C-alpha cells in the first residue's frame, strides 16, 4: 500500500497554475510584440521609434519609388515562383516514385533527402558557390570554343539561387507528400482497381485528389522558404539582389524606416501564404491518420531561419522531425 501523503491541493497548486498561465501569456507577447513593433513603425511618420508622429504611408511610398527595391522584389518573386514550381514537381514525382521502390535505392534517396534538409543553409550556400564557380570556369572556355562569335557566359544569378533553393524545398515537398501517402486510405485504391480503373485513372481520380492538400501545402512552403531565404541567396545570387539581400544590406548601413515598410511587405506575403498552408495541412490531417507532429515538423523544417536563415535548416532532425532546414 502506498503511504498516504498529504496532497498539497489548494493554494500552492492554484499559485503554480496562475504562474504558468501568466508565463505563457508573457511568452506569446515576447514572440509577437517585436514583429508588431516593426509593422507599427512602418506606418509611423517619424524617422525612428522615439519619434511617434502619427500615421503615414510615406515609407511605403519611398520604398515603392526605389528602383533597387522594385528590382529586388521582382527577382524575389521570380525566384520564389520558379522554385515553387520546380520543387513541387520534383518533390511530388519523387515521392510517388519512392512508393513503388524498395531497398537500397529507396534508402539512399531518403538519406539524401535528410541530408538536404539537415545541412546548415550557410554550408549549402558556400558549397553551391564553390561548385558553381568551379563548374563555370570549366564550362565557359568550352562555350567560347563552340560559339566563338558571341560566347554565352555562364555566371551566378537568379537561376543559381533557384537551383539551390529547389534542392532543399523539393526535399520538404517530398517529405510532406510521402507523409500524406502513408496516411492515405489504401482501400480506396484497391477498390478503384477492383472496379477496373486503369492505374492512371486511379491515380487521377483517387490518389491525386487525396494528395492535393499536401502538394499545395508543400508548394506554398517552398514559395515562402525561397521568398524569405537570405543566407543561401547571399552566396549564390551573384549580381541579382533579392529582397532579403537588399534589406540586409540596407539595415547594415543603418536602420531606416523604409526597411520597416519592406519588412512588413515581406511579412504580409509570408504570413498570407503560410496561413493558407496551415489550413491545408490541417485539412489533410483531418482526412487521414497523418502524424501531425511529422507534418508540423516538416513544416517547421524548412523554416528556418536557418535555411531561411539558419532556421530552415533547423527543422529536421529525422527521427524527430521528419526531415529537415
Amino acid at each position: 500500500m502506498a503511504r498516504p501523503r498529504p496532497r498539497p491541493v489548494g493554494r500552492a497548486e492554484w499559485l503554480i497554475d496562475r504562474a504558468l498561465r501568466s508565463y505563457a501569456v508573457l511568452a506569446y507577447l515576447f514572440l509577437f510584440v517585436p514583429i508588431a513593433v516593426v509593422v507599427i513603425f512602418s506606418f509611423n511618420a517619424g524617422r525612428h521609434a522615439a519619434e511617434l508622429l502619427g500615421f503615414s504611408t510615406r515609407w511605403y511610398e519611398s520604398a515603392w519609388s526605389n528602383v533597387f527595391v522594385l528590382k529586388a522584389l521582382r527577382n524575389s518573386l521570380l525566384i520564389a515562383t520558379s522554385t515553387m514550381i520546380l520543387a513541387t514537381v520534383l518533390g511530388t514525382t519523387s515521392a510517388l516514385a519512392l512508393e513503388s521502390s524498395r531497398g537500397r535505392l529507396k534508402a539512399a534517396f531518403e538519406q539524401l533527402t535528410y541530408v538536404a534538409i539537415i545541412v546548415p543553409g550557410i554550408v549549402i550556400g558556400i558549397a553551391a558557390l564553390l561548385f558553381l564557380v568551379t563548374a563555370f570556369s570549366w564550362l565557359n572556355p568550352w562555350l567560347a570554343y563552340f560559339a566563338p562569335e558571341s560566347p554565352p557566359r555562364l555566371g551566378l544569378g537568379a537561376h543559381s539561387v533557384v537551383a539551390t533553393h529547389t534542392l532543399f524545398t523539393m526535399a520538404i515537398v517530398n517529405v510532406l507528400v510521402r507523409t500524406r501517402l502513408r496516411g492515405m486510405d489504401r482501400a480506396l485504391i484497391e477498390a478503384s482497381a477492383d472496379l477496373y480503373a486503369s492505374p492512371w485513372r486511379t491515380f487521377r481520380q483517387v490518389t491525386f485528389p487525396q494528395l492535393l492538400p499536401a502538394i499545395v501545402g508543400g508548394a506554398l512552403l517552398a514559395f515562402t522558404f525561397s521568398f524569405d531565404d537570405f543566407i543561401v541567396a547571399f552566396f549564390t545570387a551573384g549580381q541579382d539582389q533579392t529582397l532579403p539581400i537588399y534589406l540586409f544590406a540596407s539595415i547594415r548601413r543603418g536602420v531606416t524606416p523604409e526597411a520597416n515598410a519592406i519588412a512588413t511587405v515581406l511579412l504580409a506575403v509570408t504570413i498570407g501564404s503560410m496561413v493558407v498552408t496551415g489550413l491545408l495541412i490541417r485539412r489533410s490531417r483531418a482526412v487521414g491518420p497523418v502524424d501531425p507532429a511529422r507534418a508540423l515538423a516538416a513544416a517547421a523544417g524548412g523554416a528556418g531561419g536557418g535555411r531561411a536563415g539558419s532556421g530552415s535548416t533547423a527543422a529536421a532532425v529525422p527521427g524527430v522531425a521528419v526531415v529537415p532546414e
Partner: protein
Amino acid sequence: MVAASTPVAAKGRSPAGPRGAPVRLLLIPAALWYLVFLIAPLVVLAIISLGERATNGGYEPALTLDQYASLATRFTPFTNTIVLAFGGTVMCLLAGYPLAYVLATRAGSWKTVLMALIVIPLWTSFLIRTYAWMFILGSNGVPRLLESVGIDVQLLNTPFAVLLGIVYNYLPLMALPIYVSLERLDRSFLEASRDLGAGQVATFRQITLPLSAPGVISGCLLVFLPVMGEYLIPVLLGGGKTYFLGNALADLFLQSRNWPFGSALATAFVLFVLVVVGLYTWLARRLTAPGREGGVL
C-alpha cells in the same frame, strides 16, 4: 559522402515488373538534382578543403590535411560558438519547457490556435525577426527611451543581444518537440501517481519530466545545431564581434578568401551535424517500438 551512387542505381534497378518501372523512373530528375546540387558541391567542398590557399586568396590544388590540423589551433575564436550556442540552447529550454507544458496541460479548446501561434513565427522571415530586435535594441529604440529617464545603456552589439536573438528565434523550435512528447504522455501514469498520493510537484518531477526527455533532447538538437551555424544574429545583433561558425565561414570566403581553410571548417561542421543527427536517429529508433519509425518527436 553519404551515398554517391544513388542516381546511378536509380537507372539500373527497375526490373520489378512493367507496372512499377515507369513510376520509378520519375525518381531520376530528383536524383539528378541531388547529384548536381548537393553531392557535387559537397565533394567540391571536401576537395578544396584538402588544398592550400593561393598567395592572393582562393584555392591552390594540393593534397594535405594541414587545414584540418590547424582547425584545432585556430579553434579559440570559435569557443564563442560553443559557449553562446550552448547558453542559447539552455535558455531556450528554460523558456520553452514551461510554455510547452502550459500548452499540453492547460490550453483546452484553444490548443490549435495556440499551437498555430507558435508555428507562425517560424514561418516568418528569420531576417525580419532578427531585424525587429535590431530596431528595438538600437540606439533609437529602447535605449533612447531609457535615456529620457536617465538610464544610459548599450543593448545592441552585446552578447546579451545575441542571446536574446537566439532565444527569440529558436524558442518555437524548442517548444514544439517538447509539446509533442508531453502530449503523447500516457495520462494513466499521471492518474496513478495522483492516486498513490503524490502531489502535483512530485508527479511532475517523477513522471512528467523523465517521460518528456525525448522531446527535450530533440528540441535541444533542433536549436543547438542551427545556432552553431548562425550568421544573421551575430552580424545584426552582435555587431559582428560575437563569432559563430556561420560568420566565421562567411568571413573566410568573402573577406580573407581563405577557401581551403573555410572548406575544412565547413566540411567538419557538416560531418559534426550529420554524425550527431545520425546518432540521435539511431538511438531514437532503438528506443521506440518497432513499426513506429522515428516517432520520438
